[in-house]
Structures are given as structure tokens and as C-alpha cells.
């Protein structure tokens, strides 16, 4: 008998084949998000998925068979803010890339974290501009040669988790696509968390990153994530020198803070 993939029921008819390149980590992230929804037994009709421009914007749109708002470059969090404020009872999830969320959209990211608005932002961080052809991103490692850093990147990479933590997010976690199980756990946590949740997923772009920089294909990249990552707990006992070039994975922030839509609801109650 033929087995049906348990997550296929969440996939929009006609959009079954993902729009990503061979081995792209975005598919693993998409699956992790859907698995989290499935395991929590939530109704996908209660979700609004918002994405921006770039490969990762295609993770929910049109792939997820739900309300999906595919917005302009850099602005998904701002659109999502409007959605969440007007319908606080909905689960609002932003899924987009590092260029979209942290370069052009960096301001919206920090302000959403500051407001602690009840949404989940999942950042597929491939460290490069994939869709436009491998240009340097604010998340590209120092020294890396890209199509726009032919002599090596002279800028430091952004630590997005530290950024959103500093800005006031209630929940922050980092994983890689190798850690698909941990990622699923974090998405479940984020979806049930009041307040702003940010999950960074280090994700392979086998074409624009792997091939051009010589790191290798998707398999090589994921093996690299496995070898170079260590848990938050383990990292706590290591020196800065020992942590150099390591990916710290796990939950970085989990705290309870006043959430924006609840604060706004209080304003309305004054007038009732």
C-alpha cells in the first residue's frame, strides 16, 4: 500500500513540489514548521503565514495550504504586525531569510522584538543572498569570498539571536538544519509562547554558498553544521577563543514579558 506523507495534508494543492534548489535547507525548515503544527494538533486555518522576498519567502508561500501573505522585500514583520494587531486571536508566523529580515528589514525585526508582539519569526539564515546570485549578506562570515566580496568579506556577521535578545524578544533559539528535531521542538515552543519568538535556522544554500565558496554540497554543509555546532549548555563552559567559528544551538532566551496585543486590549477596556 502507498504511504502518504503525514505533512502533505498541509501542502497547498498544486504547490506540492517545493520551489527550492536541490538540497536547499528551506525544505527542511518548511517540514519542521509543519511538523510542529501537526504535533501540537493545531488547525492550520488559524494561522497566517507572512513572508518576504528571497528564497525563504517561498517556504510558506504558496507551499502551505493556509492564509499566506507574501509581501515585499524586508517588510514581512511590518505586515505581520498589522495582521496580528487586527486579529490577535490568530497565530502569525513570519518565515523569511536573513537578507530580508536582518538587512533591509532589520529595523522591523528589532522593533517587533521591542514591542514583544505575539508572533513567531523564523529566519532561514544561509549567510548569503541566494536568489540574486550569491552576494554578501550581513550574516556572511568575515573573509568569505562572495560575488560582491571578491577579495573576501571585510564586515563582521550579524548575531541575530543576540540582536533580538537585546531588543526584548521573549523567546530566542538557534538551530541548524542538521538539528531538525531541536528545531521542531523550538517551533512548538515558539507557537505556544506569549510574546515575540525568534528562531534562527542556519541553513544550507548548496548553490550560491556551498558551490561558490568551496564548502561543498548540501550533505557537506549539513555535516559541517553537525561538526561545528555545540549546545548552549556546553558553550557556557568554553572560552571565547574556543567558541570561535562555532554555532551555538539551542534555546537562548525564554522569559515572560508583557505582550503587545494584550497591552492594547487593556486600552480598549478603559472605554468599555
Amino acid at each position, binding site marked *: 500500500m502507498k504511504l502518504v506523507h503525514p505533512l502533505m495534508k498541509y501542502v497547498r494543492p498544486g504547490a506540492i513540489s517545493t520551489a527550492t534548489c536541490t538540497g536547499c535547507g528551506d525544505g527542511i525548515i518548511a517540514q519542521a514548521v509543519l511538523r510542529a503544527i501537526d504535533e501540537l494538533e493545531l488547525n492550520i486555518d488559524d494561522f497566517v503565514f507572512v513572508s518576504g522576498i528571497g528564497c525563504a519567502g517561498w517556504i510558506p508561500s*504558496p507551499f502551505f495550504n493556509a*492564509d*499566506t501573505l507574501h509581501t515585499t522585500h524586508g517588510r514581512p514583520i511590518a505586515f505581520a*504586525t498589522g495582521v496580528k494587531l*487586527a486579529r490577535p486571536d490568530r497565530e502569525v508566523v513570519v518565515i523569511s531569510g536573513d537578507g530580508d529580515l536582518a538587512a533591509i528589514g532589520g529595523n522591523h525585526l528589532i522593533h517587533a522584538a521591542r514591542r514583544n508582539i505575539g508572533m513567531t519569526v523564523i529566519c532561514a539564515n544561509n549567510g548569503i543572498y541566494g536568489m540574486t546570485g550569491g552576494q554578501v549578506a550581513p550574516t556572511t562570515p568575515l573573509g568569505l569570498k562572495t560575488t560582491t566580496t571578491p577579495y573576501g568579506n571585510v564586515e563582521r556577521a550579524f548575531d541575530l539571536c543576540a540582536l533580538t535578545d537585546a531588543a526584548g524578544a521573549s523567546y530566542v533559539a538557534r538551530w541548524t538544519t542538521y538539528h531538525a528535531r531541536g528545531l521542531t521542538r523550538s517551533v512548538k515552543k515558539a507557537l505556544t509562547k506569549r510574546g515575540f519568538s525568534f528562531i534562527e535556522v542556519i541553513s544550507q544554500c548548496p548553490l550560491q554558498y556551498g558551490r561558490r565558496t568551496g564548502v561543498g554540497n548540501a550533505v557537506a554543509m549539513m555535516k559541517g553544521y553537525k561538526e561545528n555546532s555545540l549546545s548552549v549548555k556546553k558553550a557556557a563552559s568554553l572560552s571565547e577563543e574556543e567558541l570561535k567559528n562555532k554555532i551555538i544551538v539551542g534555546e537562548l532566551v525564554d522569559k515572560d514579558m508583557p505582550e503587545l496585543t494584550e497591552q492594547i486590549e487593556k*486600552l480598549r477596556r478603559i*472605554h468599555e
Partner: protein
Amino acid sequence: MSKEILTGVYFMQGDIACAEGALAAGCKFFGGYPITPASEIAERMAERLPEVSGVYIQMEDELASIAAVVGSSWTGAKSMTATSGPGISLMQENIGYAVATETPCVLINVQRGGPSTGIPSIHLQGDIIQARRGSHGEYEMIALAPSSSQEMFDFTIDAFNLAEKYRTPVFILSDAFVGHMREEVIIPEPERIYRVPRKLPDSGTCGGKFRGFLDEDVAPMPIFGHGFKTHVTGSCHNDFGQRNVIDAEALDYYIKRLNSKISKHAHEIISVSQDVDGKEVALISYGSCYRAAREALNILEDEGIRQVGSFRLLTVWPFPRNQIQELARKVKSIIVLENNLGQITPYVEAAAGGQAEVIFLPPRVLGTLHDPATIVDKVKEVIR
């Protein structure tokens, strides 16, 4: 008394009247960023929206403001933002997104003196073309130009109704003069205020099978949160919202449908007021300039010069081409009054098609209302 509609007589600033008009129209969401001379609208909405179970949010910038407005509109809320030229410049990309995704929303531009920072508190009709074509690509826009506090109230209601009826962003092109001026505003009884409700698909309709986009006669809006599973994208898409970023034919269909949704109904949208029958000269004006045109006509009438009439654009966009074509057949001369260097004048010239002489008359000093005396002088010169 309804908290949404504060029935009564007021001595009210244009900006405040605009906010009250929005609330009377059923606006439940305001996303904005402070800027002179539009901040009073935001301040009023911040105070008033919580009273009517609405949401006010001051976003981190104008790009975020329009994005939040569009996002909230997709949940079914009537939404607006208010800013001035610099803010509109920042919003342009997502104004295009609102057009492309057929998102009803109202954009208030209280114009100030530009380009760039210019003079914040001085009025210029500098953003007329920007409203029409400020975003990239090929699209239609609806824009209304109020000239008084009362019209700031009335036209804002009209703007919400047009936005709902045609599922598209609608501009109010006010200016610092009208926005900051205080005049009598009469807010009618709630039953006298007409509100166009949002047209929604039947419940149970699933997005994948529902034609929720690109209908020339305006598709019902498959808003979020009702299980429609709507796919909204600013990319080229078909009637079902399905993206197509490969075929030129798809782009052709997409653009033409979005445009014909407005152009096909232009005759219903366009509103002009004219008093030109049997006249020799017409004064074309819109927004604050209309007040100067009226005064000039009063002076002319007092002097016994009666062959001059007024043609006012209440909607600047879509442009009343046919109406001006007709006007050009009736009168010998058209004087276009604009507080800029002639933004609609080329459109008037094109519509007149040589049937009437078209003369552009700016105020002597840009950023001020026309001195009625200069209009009177120009009319006398033309008549002679």
C-alpha cells in the same frame, strides 16, 4: 451617542475632521509615523481608536506603517495611514503592493513644501503626480482633493467607501493649509452616513478554488482567518491568486485587469463640480486652490464679469479626461490653478486637445494660496 460618529457642530481643524471622517466610515486600524503637517491625524486616532475597539499603532517608520495597514486590511479591518510627502515617498513600494493585492486602505497625504525636507508647515500641491505614479509599474489610482475642514471629513468617508467598493488604496490629497485650517464641521447623524461594507466570499469557499483576484467588477475579498486559505502575493498572479512569474501573457492579463478594474468604472468614481454652461472661460482647480478660484469668481461677479465659471476636480485621479474634453468644446479658455509648477496642466492640455486655450496659473509665490486678484487679472487678460 455613537462613539464612532460624534454627531454635532464643531470648529475643527482639517486634520482632526479627517480622523473623525475615518472613524465615521468605520476605520478600525491606523498605522503611522509622525510628520508635520499630518501628525494631528495620528494624535486624534491614537486617542479615539481605543474608544471604538480599534487599534492605533505608531510604527517604526513609514515603510512599516503602510505594511501594517495592508496586513490589518487583510484581516477585514478598514485601515488607514496619514503622512506627508516624505512619508508617502517611503511608502511607495507598498502602495504598489496594496494596488497589486487589491487591498482596500486609505492614504492621507497632507502635502507640504518639497522636494526633500522642504518646508514642513507650508502647503504645496507637489505630490499630485506622485500619487498617480509614485510606485513602480503600471497601475491606476484614486485620489480625492478636499478644500475645507468639512470636506476633510466628508471626503475621508468617500475614500473609505471607494476603497471598499473597488478594493484598492485611495488617496486623500490634502495640504498643510487645509489640514491645519479650522472651520465649521458638521458631523451628521449616524443614519445619514453611508458606509460601503466589505464584500466577502461565501463562508466555506476555499481559496484554491475561489476567484478572489483580478475581477474587473471587483472580486469579493478572501480575507484571512476564515479558512479561505488565501494566497496573497505582490508577484504577478492569476484570478485565484496563484503566482506566475514566467509568462508575459500572465503579466499582460494581471496588469490589464488591475487597471481596468478602475478604468472601466472611472465614470462612477470621477467627481467634478462645474458651473460652465454658457461661459467663455473656465477656472480649473482642485484642493485648496478651489477656495481662491471661488473668491476670484465672487470678485468677477461683483464687477459684472459673468462669462467665467468654475470646474473643480473633487477626484484628481482617475483624471476626468472626458469631462475636460467636453469642457474644452464649451469654453474658449481654460485657466488651470495649481499650487505647483503645473502638474495636472499637461493632462488638461491633452484632454482639451486644442479645442480650448489652456493657461496654467500658479500662485505668485509657491506655497501660498493664489491671490484672487491675480486670478481676476488673468481672466480679464484672457477675455480681452
